[in-house]
């Protein structure tokens, strides 16, 4: 059986692991250094390559922007969906009462589209012959790992579980506290348990012991420990794990009021619900107006990425706070206890375990987290850089996934290639594209010797690049519009002027993309290449005063 870990590898597996660990960093550096050298030695060739790259980038940008817009539209459409109503209709279907029908709307086009999508999903469910459990029998297990977070960080998230449309009586909250956490944190967890226990089905606190064999100081180890405790709990309460949906949230995660209802619906309507993860759209609205502009732009970009990823569920991988079938989690052996990127690792672990019969279902509902604010501009920059590097550390999955693919006999080759290419290309693009666009693209002209500067190419290349970037601004405008629509509207203390000013912050993209996206990714890949595995660093979070 394939072990989803880089620990205890020997012989051929160890060689393979190191080879694949080296590959992303080596490729990124080769690309950057190679282009740099070609710009110097063969500026004509470099200029041609850069033109081709710019054109490819433009088309890719248009492609992504189109799906960003469509995905945002879907999010907008589902904003007012009555998920509990849908759940009840599925219940009636399961109970064999009447087929859910939708009231035609005379004036709400959003509802019409949403209903149409729902009809198709229900039809697929019916055709699958795999009816879901009744919603009354579905439980939500919410695991919130804690190590440094103060009560005021965690409590809003807990409050949001209560305020949702889904009955909290079916929610079990587990605060997973690290043994190494300060007493203050442990005390807060106990206080929260005391205060909120009666509001939920149950409210548990687990203390994850330090230095368990085989475990690194990672969130996944803590979450896995809590999940095992929860499994024992479910056994004691005779709750079938197949009816449990587990959500592993960051301590600052605040869910949308419809989150659990949408999640329950998605679980019920998915025929292979116990071979599925459920990925919401992460937004960073908790303190978005209290952070520097560059951080705002960066986090909006992360949300946009997930929005576009949601449009191709066949290649969707889980990210950050998300949910999954508890049965699937248990079957695969819970989250990896030695990996930093537990959010994506669990998906791949499940995918390989189930030999490809595993999927991530996009949910068009949001959950909100904090931007990594640290008070001062400089500290926030460092925090953001480290956080992005931690995200980029998801590249650690690449070698393990590749080994898993090589070991798998059942997965079709085409499928392996598709996913491997997407995973690999995604990390390389992350680390190199901004640098190519913002820095390296201008080098041929900078290094231009007499030979190059007397060619037609020397004069047409900048013009073509300028034209491409002008076209790209169309995409930028779309992005700005979507970001303005996505930003939280309820916090009225910031003026319309302030929000409009946010539009101009998008002009920071070249700087933000290089320093807070490409460089952290390159940093992470280089560490992996050199075998300098990252310790887990808990992102500092503050609440605005």
């Amino acid at each position, binding site marked *: 059986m394939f072990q989803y870990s880089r620990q205890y590898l020997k012989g051929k597996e160890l060689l393979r692991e190191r080879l694949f660990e080296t590959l992303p960093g080596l490729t990124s550096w080769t690309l950057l250094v190679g282009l740099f050298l070609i710009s110097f030695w063969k500026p004509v060739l470099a200029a*041609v390559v850069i033109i081709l790259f710019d054109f490819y980038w433009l088309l890719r940008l248009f492609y992504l922007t189109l799906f960003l817009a469509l995905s945002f539209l879907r999010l907008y459409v589902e904003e007012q969906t009555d998920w509990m109503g849908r759940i009840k209709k599925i219940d009636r279907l399961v109970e064999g009462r009447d087929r859910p029908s939708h009231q035609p709307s005379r004036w709400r086009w959003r509802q019409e589209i949403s209903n149409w999508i729902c009809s198709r999903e229900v039809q697929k469910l019916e055709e699958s012959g795999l009816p879901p459990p009744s919603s009354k029998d579905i439980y939500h297990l919410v695991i919130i790992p804690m190590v440094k977070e103060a009560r005021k960080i965690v409590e809003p998230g807990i409050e949001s579980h209560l305020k949702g449309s889904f009955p909290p009586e079916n929610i079990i909250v587990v605060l997973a506290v690290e043994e190494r956490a300060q007493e203050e944190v442990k005390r807060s967890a106990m206080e929260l348990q005391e205060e909120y226990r009666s509001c939920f089905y149950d409210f548990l606190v687990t203390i994850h012991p330090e230095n368990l064999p085989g475990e690194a100081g990672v969130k996944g180890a803590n979450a896995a420990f809590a999940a095992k405790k929860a499994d024992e709990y479910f056994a004691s309460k005779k709750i079938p794990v197949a009816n449990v949906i587990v959500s592993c949230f960051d301590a600052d995660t605040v869910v949308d009021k419809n989150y659990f209802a949408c999640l329950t619906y998605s679980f019920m309507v998915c025929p292979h619900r116990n071979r599925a993860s459920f990925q919401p759209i992460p937004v960073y609205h908790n303190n978005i107006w209290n952070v520097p502009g560059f951080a705002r732009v960066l986090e909006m970009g992360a949300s946009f990425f997930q929005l576009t990823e949601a*449009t191709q569920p066949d290649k969707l991988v889980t990210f950050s706070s998300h949910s999954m079938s508890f049965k699937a989690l248990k079957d695969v052996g819970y989250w990896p206890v030695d990996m930093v990127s537990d959010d994506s690792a669990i998906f791949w672990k499940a995918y390989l375990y189930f030999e490809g019969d595993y999927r991530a279902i996009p949910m068009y509902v949001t959950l909100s987290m904090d931007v990594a604010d640290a008070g001062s501009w400089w500290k926030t920059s460092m925090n953001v850089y480290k956080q992005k590097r931690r995200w980029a550390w998801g590249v650690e999955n690449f070698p393990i996934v590749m080994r898993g693919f090589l070991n798998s006999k059942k997965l079709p080759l085409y499928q392996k290639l598709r996913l491997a290419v997407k995973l690999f290309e995604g990390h390389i693009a992350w680390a190199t594209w901004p640098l190519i666009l913002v820095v390296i693209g201008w080098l041929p002209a900078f290094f231009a010797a007499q030979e190059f500067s*007397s060619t037609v190419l*020397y004069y*047409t290349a900048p013009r073509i690049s300028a034209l491409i970037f002008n076209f790209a601004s169309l995409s930028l405008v779309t992005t700005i519009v979507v970001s303005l629509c996505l930003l939280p509207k309820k916090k009225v203390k910031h003026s319309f002027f302030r929000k409009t000013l946010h539009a101009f912050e998008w002009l920071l993209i070249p700087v933000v993309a290089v320093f807070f996206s490409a460089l952290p990714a390159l940093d992470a890949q280089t560490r992996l290449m050199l075998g300098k595995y990252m310790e887990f660093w808990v992102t500092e979070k503050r609440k605005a005063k």
Partner: protein
Amino acid sequence: MLLFRRIVFYLFLTVFLIGAPLIVFYALGYIYKPGEEKGIVKTGVVYLSSAPPGATIYVGKRRYYEKTPATIRELLAGEYPIKLVLKDYIPWIQSVSVEQGKATVLDKILLRPRKKNMTRLTERRYQRLIPIALTEYLLLERGTALGQMEVYSWEKDVTWPMLPKSVLSKAKVTKVYTEEDSPYAILRAADKGGERYLWTKLSKEREKAQDITDLFVEKPDKIDWPPGQSRYLFSFHGNYLNRLDLDSMTVMPKFAEQIQGYGFSARELYVLQGEDTFARVDFAGKSVKSLMKDSSLFQILFGADDFFSIHVFSDDLILFLGDDGKLVTNRLPYELVERGVLGFDIEKREQRLVIWTQDSLGVIDFSSDVKRGDIFQRGPQLRWVYKEGRDIKDAFWVYQDAYILFQDRNDVFLLELETLGNPNLYELLAVKKHAPVHYVEKTGRLYYLDEKSGRLASLEVVPKQALIDIPLPRTEEERKEKKVQGL
């Protein structure tokens, strides 16, 4: 959504596969011309940049939307008449040839104004102007008396008397010694007491002039000093150099003997000595390094009787100018001009030299020593660009190396080198007889004495916005003094 996504993906892929080669071909200069034999032709471009910018471009009869600086694209190979038109400026017209896949670059076109931008700088009239190259100063003579010598600073645009009033104000100036890149001058003045040598700083905040007459036991043929320093002077007597120390007011007689030529860098004296020695000596006279060991080559280059002034531009570029106008360099093929050179000006960035004889101007390009593909090194190339002079007195590089401004008798001309055929010649103005002119690249202006009034005036040759202004630090001379004092 999956199906839609797939369709869009293949659509974009198709656009890329078709568009990418088209873009690359366009970038390389290929276009499709209906009616041509093959249809697809490779074109060239012309890049035009003028000072001032914003000129309307005509290629043949066709007027272009872009204004200078601009790139004219999609030109088939051939000759094109190009005209630049700007209000209040004389149209610039030239025939330009375009090659396939190549860019023809004319990036230093100076448009001449219809009305010259002249400025009168002083009300007083002067008889003579003495420029001091690489400084902000011009010396002006109202008459022959010491008190009639004035200094003008083009940087401050102010004039002041060269020396404060004193008993010597009426002494007659018999000679003025200046040095390139030095803010000092020596005046040799004669009064009833005899001849005196006065060492003075030219700045407005100068102290009293220093009487250094006692340092001159005999009348020197020449007096020179290293650029940027104020301690040592060197007087040349026939065939030896005395070193004069202004700090201790002492003389080191025969500091160097059997001198056939000399020159200075900031830290050292270069000498041609004896009949076979080219050496470098520090000013203390302690460190002597021989730079040439081939006495036969020495004889071929410098002969036995000729005197050479040595000009050190860098470690790998030294020029020797003989009294008879022979120009020699330390680079192959060594001898550049056999005779007749009266002076030269160097454009350091582009490593080009303009030389003038009485009737000709030539350009020597030191930067194009070796071309790719050549087996034989060619060395610096001399090209005579103008041969119709009458009495060329001085020449200057203008607008980096695009133009040469020169004075021929009392007329000043501008020679445009940025052409693809013969250089174009423009007459600028006439100046006072026998009065030199001075061009300052930093301001883009020509300084001269007005032909009729004798007043100091300036003419804008290059518009300010065309110049890259690299301001000299005000402490430049202090910095250099400190450097030399550290010897």
